[in-house]
């Protein structure tokens, strides 16, 4: 029972990181139908910014987190402007290849500039572990859970309550009709990238703090798993991405806990395939009827 609770807590911490990443995927996919392969690398950029901000600019945790979010959203908007916008009306597979190209570029560019080896993330917060009924939870885990929940609530507020959020939902449903009522889709898409990338940047700083190690290729696998989480939750749905992220995190730690850690990635993909076959629209997605 205790081990189970312990794994639950570890799974939730990991899951909230996946959930933050999955939110970015799901928003971008919902609006321009592009699997943004470079999203995992934005998360890496956020982690690296956090590393340099703490080590050289002597920022605290909050400063590093907020500045990483700003930097990540700037790079997200820039990537969208330079690489994805020219391909707005091209076949989707071309945009996808461009996204992969951007991902390669960021990974290898960072390896080239800063070296490919892993480095220790500065521990701005000394880890303390609290015990409740024999279940340990560290302050870093609490911080990750708390910060992610705050960010998710904030995101939900932006999407549901603000004018920009309304415009985002409008463009996601029908870009042409949105244009007719005076929404500039380019602005909305830039804003979507800014929001999603900010969440990824925050996730990057927090994972650095949690795992204590960052490297230029760190975004690849979590990026793909977060995409899986977004698909499981129902792509295009914001609550779905959050729930999907937590589910994938719990599944991964669960499989590890029963001693099959070598197969944890396979388990994630197996769940994905089963999910797609049984419920292709995901947990929270809308089913679309086929019209002849």
């Amino acid at each position, binding site marked *: 029972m205790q081990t189970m609770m312990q794994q639950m807590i570890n799974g939730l911490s990991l899951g909230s990181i996946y959930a933050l990443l999955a939110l970015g995927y799901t928003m971008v996919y919902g609006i321009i139908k592009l*699997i943004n392969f470079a999203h995992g690398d934005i998360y890496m950029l956020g982690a690296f910014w956090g590393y340099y901000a703490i080590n050289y600019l002597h920022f605290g945790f909050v400063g590093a987190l907020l500045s990483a979010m700003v930097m990540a959203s700037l790079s997200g908007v820039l990537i969208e402007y330079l690489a994805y916008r020219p391909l707005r009306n091209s076949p989707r597979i071309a945009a996808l290849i461009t996204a992969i190209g951007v991902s390669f570029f960021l990974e290898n560019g960072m390896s080239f500039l800063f070296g490919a080896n892993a480095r220790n993330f500065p521990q701005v917060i000394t880890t303390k572990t609290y015990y409740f009924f024999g279940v340990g939870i560290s302050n870093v885990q609490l911080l990750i859970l708390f910060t992610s929940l705050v960010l998710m609530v904030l995101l939900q507020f932006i999407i549901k309550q603000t004018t920009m959020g309304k415009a985002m939902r409008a463009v996601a449903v029908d870009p042409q009709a949105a244009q007719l009522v005076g929404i500039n889709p380019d602005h909305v898409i830039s804003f979507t990238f800014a929001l999603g990338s900010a969440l990824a940047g925050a996730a990057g700083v927090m994972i650095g703090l949690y795992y204590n190690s960052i490297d230029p290729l760190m975004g690849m696998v979590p990026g793909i798993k977060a995409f899986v989480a977004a698909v499981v939750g129902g792509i295009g749905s914001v609550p779905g991405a959050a729930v999907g992220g937590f589910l994938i995190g719990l599944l991964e730690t669960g499989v590890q806990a029963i001693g099959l850690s070598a197969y944890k*990635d396979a388990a994630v993909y197996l769940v994905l395939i089963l999910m*797609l076959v049984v419920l292709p629209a995901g947990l929270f997605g809308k089913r679309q009827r086929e019209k002849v």
Partner: protein
Amino acid sequence: MLKNLRSKLSWLAIMVGGFILINVGVLTGVINTFIENALVTVGINIILAVGLNLIIGFSGQFSLGHAGFMAIGAYATAIVTQNMATPLGFYLAMALGVVIAIVAALIVGVPTLRLRGDYLAIATMGAAEIIRVVINNLKITNGPAGMFNIPPLASWPTVYILMCVTTVVIVNFIHSRAGRAVMAIRDDDIAAESIGINPTKWKLAAFVLGAATAAIGGSLHASYLQTIAPSDFGIMNSISLLIIVVLGGVGSMTGTFVAAIVLGIIDTALQNFGTLRMVIYALALILLMVFKPSGLLGRYELSFGRKRRARKEAASS
């Protein structure tokens, strides 16, 4: 039959000509081991990418799991030829790899080919990753360390001939009734179904044929390089094959050849740049896609039959 004879002979002449050209190059020493290596890599990539182009370009199924089927072929060859290091063993191993890949493609394809577009891509990617994780944990495949000292039974002529054979098989498939059915499903599956084409059956046929050629490519890869590891068959490898297909033009076999050769040249030329190589490669990819989204050749195909027909029409009018 006779009508197409001249175009068929032209193709045969090109294949034989290419073979003689490489042979002369090797004999005179123009093609050293380094260039031969690069050429064989291009050849294997062509085998793999032609199969992937059949799946993506002609049957419209977005598969991101090609490296998984390649891994099956490679490991089947490695395991069998280590116990039976003869040319016969090599071809038996290749056949075994193809059969296992076909079975795997059926298992993966039957449930997932109902999905469309990006969902199918993610599902096939997941399937390929499952294959890789299983190989990573089996005893017979030597786990994450991979297999080495695989007997070198595939030389460049083997790769060249198999490249020609697989391409001819796939191009003939495309030009047959099956190919037309598959393309009809790609363009509009409901319309195709209404004229009596079974979409599931033909999509699966294209997928299985693509997987079989991937196994052949993997088999050659294992035998030529003599070492394989599960990490050689990850998502990135599926993606680099996808890049060849998209760069050449989705739905153009000629484009696949051109792109594989162009990328091979870029790769070889940038060999000395170290980490910068991948940066330049990535930039080249982004720029090519931004300025030429339909790929180098779009849907253009080199065809002697069509050229001759066009000349005849011009002469008669």
